[in-house]
Structure formats: C-alpha cells, structure tokens
C-alpha cells in the first residue's frame, strides 16, 4: 500500500464543484481526511450591499448564486417587502412561482448532468445543459436576460409576462417531459450508475438535521421537509404538489438505504417532474391584474428599522436572507445563508474520511455544492 499522500482537488480540476478546492489526505484509495478551502470567489457582497441603496442592491444579489439567480432576487425582495409591510399583487405571486420553478428545473438539470458527468456519463451533462438552454430561452423572452434576470423586484415583478409566454413555457415543458425517459435510461436506470452511486457518499440520517442539511439532500435522507410547504411564499400555498422524499422514489427503484448519491439524484429528477406540475398549475390559475405595487421613488426608499429573516427553498436547500435596517436609505447588514455553506464545508469534511477517492467528486457534486453561496 502507498503511504499517506496529499491530493488537491481544485480549484483548477474537473472534479471541483466550481471555483473551490478540497485538500485530501489519502492512503491508497481511501480518503483519510479532507479540508474544504473556499474564498476563491469572495467579492464581499455583504460589504458592497451596505454601501448601496436598497434598490441598487437588486442587480447585485442575483450574482450570489449563479446557477439559480432568481432565488436571490426573490429572497431579497421578500425581505424588503417584509420590512416595508408590503403585500404584493396576486398575479405577481404566481409569476414569481413560475420563474422560481423554471430556475429550479434549470438548476436541477445542470446538477443531475454534473453528477452523471462526475461518474463518467458525459452524455448526460451535454443533454442536461443543452436542454437547460431552452429554459434560458424562456427567461430571455420574459426578462431579457439569459442568466441574470433582475426580474423579481421588491413589490412584485418588473413587468407582466409577454402574451405568448403560456405557449412558450408549455412547449418547453412538453419537450422536457418527452426527454425525461431518455434521461432515466441513461442515468437512473443504468446498472453501472446504480453500482457506482448506491450506498456511496452517505450523510447519516440521524445527523442530517443537526448538521444543517437542507433541501433535496435532506429529503434524500428520508425527511419530508420543504420550505415551500412549511413556510409558503409566493403562491405555493395555493398550488397542489408533492414533496419527493426518500422511500417514495416513484418510478425509480429503491436500491439503497437512502441519503446516497443515487437517492439524491433521483430526488432531483422527481423534483423536476413536480416543478413542471407546479408551473402548469400556476399558468392555469394565474389571475389577471397588476404585477407591481405602486412604489415611492426608487432611490428614496427608507426601509423601517427592524430585523427580517426570510427563506426560500432553492434547488440546493434553504436559502435565507437576514436583513437588518435602521430606518435608513441603505441596509445595515444583509447576511446570506447559502445552502452549500453547511453542505460544502462541514458535511463534506465529516463524511469524506473513508470515501474512495473515486467517489469524492461525485459526492460533492451530488450534494450540489455551489461555492459562491459559501463565501459570497
């Protein structure tokens, strides 16, 4: 056997989940110890936001999480609305729901693709990212931007959906539903994938909540917990949808005790189906009316003093904004809780010992660690 040696995964490494790095101490094929190193993407958002007006922060926040920027806009807007005491128009809530769910699908497609790619099925990543592009086309049609939309504002959404939005969205959803069996054959029903992914990278179920695991990773551990149901925001309280969680994997075989790479992938695929269902309902039930509150002059907002914590369920887990105002024109403090903060650092460092070095990257990808959320 080899003696203990050091191995760097990242920042310049295909196995690193974005611009971050893991330092591994391994012996033979087994990881002995792991250390997460972040900071390669630190821009000091929280500092910059203290220097900018409430409104000027809107274009800034979406840059915090790149694969799914809309949750940042939504959470920041909700925090401001909370402090201001605004109730946004009904139609805006539905539009927010549609946008957030589209963003969730796009993020999940990318994540599922990258998990598969980290195990070697590059075809899945190519398909996933290729299909995600059709969702970006919808975003472009609705908001004008492909990646950063700056569409959800405090007080509603910037403008109404275009007239052909319903047809555009339905077309893409139909296409995705048609594609899903192909993804299943390629990834989750693939025997070699099951061999590689089942029972690997397990987050202990009894520790999951204590360690701060949230989102699809928590549901893969067998908890039926989702902030869209626990603390409904946007229009989620009026929409009927299911929360896929561990023993109920629908059409997928249960091949392990859950909380592993396979289950986390399956949960994400099932969430795409649920998201499609939510969007269809929202498109059907959406009322007519205004989409933006009548607001005071944008650059003269004074937000009442107070503390506000709002959370949204992002594709990675709980995404929270802690906003503190002293009644001034600028926030005193904005603190962002990214879901990857715990997943990427504590959970990864704790479950890494004993992993095979071949399984390390897939585990990180299946936890969907997104470094910009960690260091902001």
């Amino acid at each position, binding site marked *: 056997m080899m003696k203990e040696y050091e191995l760097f995964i990242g*920042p*310049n*490494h*295909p196995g690193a989940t*974005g*611009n971050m790095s893991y330092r591994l101490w391994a012996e033979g094929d087994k990881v002995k110890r792991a250390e997460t190193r972040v*900071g*390669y*993407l*630190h*821009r*000091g958002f929280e*500092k*910059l936001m203290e*220097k900018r007006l409430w409104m000027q922060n809107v*274009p*800034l926040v979406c*840059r915090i999480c*790149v*694969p799914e920027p809309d949750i940042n806009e939504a959470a920041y807007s909700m925090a401001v609305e909370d402090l201001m005491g605004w109730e946004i128009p009904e139609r805006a809530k539905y539009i927010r729901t549609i946008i957030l769910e589209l963003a969730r699908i796009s993020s999940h497609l*990318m994540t599922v693709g990258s998990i598969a790619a980290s195990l070697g099925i590059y075809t899945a*990543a*190519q*398909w996933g*990212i*290729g299909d*995600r*592009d059709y969702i*970006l086309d919808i975003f472009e049609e609705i908001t004008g931007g*492909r*990646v*950063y939309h700056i569409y959800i504002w405090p007080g509603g959404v910037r403008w109404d959906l275009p007239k052909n939005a319903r047809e555009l969205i339905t077309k893409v959803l139909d296409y995705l539903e048609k594609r899903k069996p192909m993804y299943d054959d390629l990834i989750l029903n693939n025997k070699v994938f099951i061999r590689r992914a089942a029972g690997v990278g397990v987050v202990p179920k009894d520790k999951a909540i204590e360690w701060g695991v949230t989102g699809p990773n928590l549901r893969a551990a067998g908890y039926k917990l989702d902030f869209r149901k626990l603390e409904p925001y946007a229009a989620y309280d009026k929409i009927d949808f299911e929360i896929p969680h561990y023993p109920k994997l629908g059409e997928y075989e249960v091949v392990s005790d859950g909380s592993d790479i396979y289950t986390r992938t399956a949960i994400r695929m099932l969430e795409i189906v649920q998201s499609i269902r939510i969007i269809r309902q929202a498109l059907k039930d959406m009322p007519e009316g205004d989409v933006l509150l009548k607001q005071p002059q944008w650059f003269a907002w004074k937000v009442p003093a107070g503390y506000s914590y709002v959370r949204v369920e992002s594709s990675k887990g709980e995404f929270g904004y802690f906003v503190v105002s002293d009644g001034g024109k600028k926030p005193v403090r904005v603190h962002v809780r990214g879901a990857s903060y715990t997943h990427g650092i504590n959970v990864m460092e704790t479950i890494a010992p004993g992993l095979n070095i071949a399984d390390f990257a897939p585990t990180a990808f299946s936890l969907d660690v997104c470094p*910009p959320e960690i260091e902001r």
Partner: protein
Amino acid sequence: MRQEDWSKLARIMSKRSLWMVHFCTGCGAMEMPPVLTSRYDMERFGMISMATPRQADVLLVTGYLAVKTLKRLVQVYEQMRDPKYVVGFGSCTINGGMYWDSYNTIKDLSKYMPVDIYIAGCMPRPEAIIDAFLKLMDMIDKGEATGWKKYHKYYKQYKRNQKMAFSYRLDEVKDIEEGDGK
C-alpha cells in the same frame, strides 16, 4: 520549407485546435457549459476544455478575480506551454464591473497578465463568446496574438504588479524600479 512557412502552417493548425483550461474563475463560467455543449458546440471549431493547464493553449478568465484566485491563475498561466493565449471574459476583467469597489477583486486583468482579447458584458452571451474565439483564431492566423511574448518581455513588471496585489499593500514592493521592466 522555410522557417516562416512552417510557423505559418503551425499557426493555421493551432488556431483550429485551441484547447482551453477548465478553470471556472468566476460566475462567467456559467455561460461556458452552454458554449461547450449541444446548443452552441465549440468543438466544431476544435475547441475542447482540458483538465490541466499543461495540456491547454487558451486560458479563459471567466469573470471577476479574487486575489486568492489570481494567485492560482498566475500559477496556471505559467504552467501552460507557449504559445498560449488569454481571453478576458466579462466586464469585471476589464475594469472591475459590478465589483468596482470590492476590496477583494482585482480590477484590471491586463496589469497582471497579458490579455489577448476581451469579451465585454455581464455576462456575455454565448454568441459573443464564439465571436471572440473566432476573432482570436483570426488573430492567431495573422500572428497578432502575442501576449505570451509580452509576458516574457515584461516579466518583471508583471511580477511586481502580482506581488502588489497578493500582499494587499503597495509599500512592500519597492525593490523593482518601474523603468527596468525587462
């Protein structure tokens, strides 16, 4: 065959086979997957992403650079083999962009390494990226993409600037006079 003919042939060949480093330095890396995959497919032009800098020709600096990343980026750049090209991606590599007043991002990439071509925008669309690569290919064909020669020539000046950025202070780097950057 004469020397010039050989180098011309080498340039024609290398412009059709640009391998880039798989290094996501910033949020601009988000628009790279679409460019590389089925929708826009850069492999049509012979571009693929490589796992390590040793194998690569193009360094794509995708977006803002934290000082910590710049340290790694310089290492990556120096590991690459000549001829090598740098593409600055997004407004943040030009003047800081959104993060003009951030304490941790460098503002102008050209102070730390030679940049052959910039892509403006936040973030640039895939079409813009492809356009930039086609322009880079054109430049290589004409022999204009000579950033790597510049890095050798003004190595001391680049090193001084890098040192200044890494230490977060200017006063410690006094030993190199501005004039003799050769």
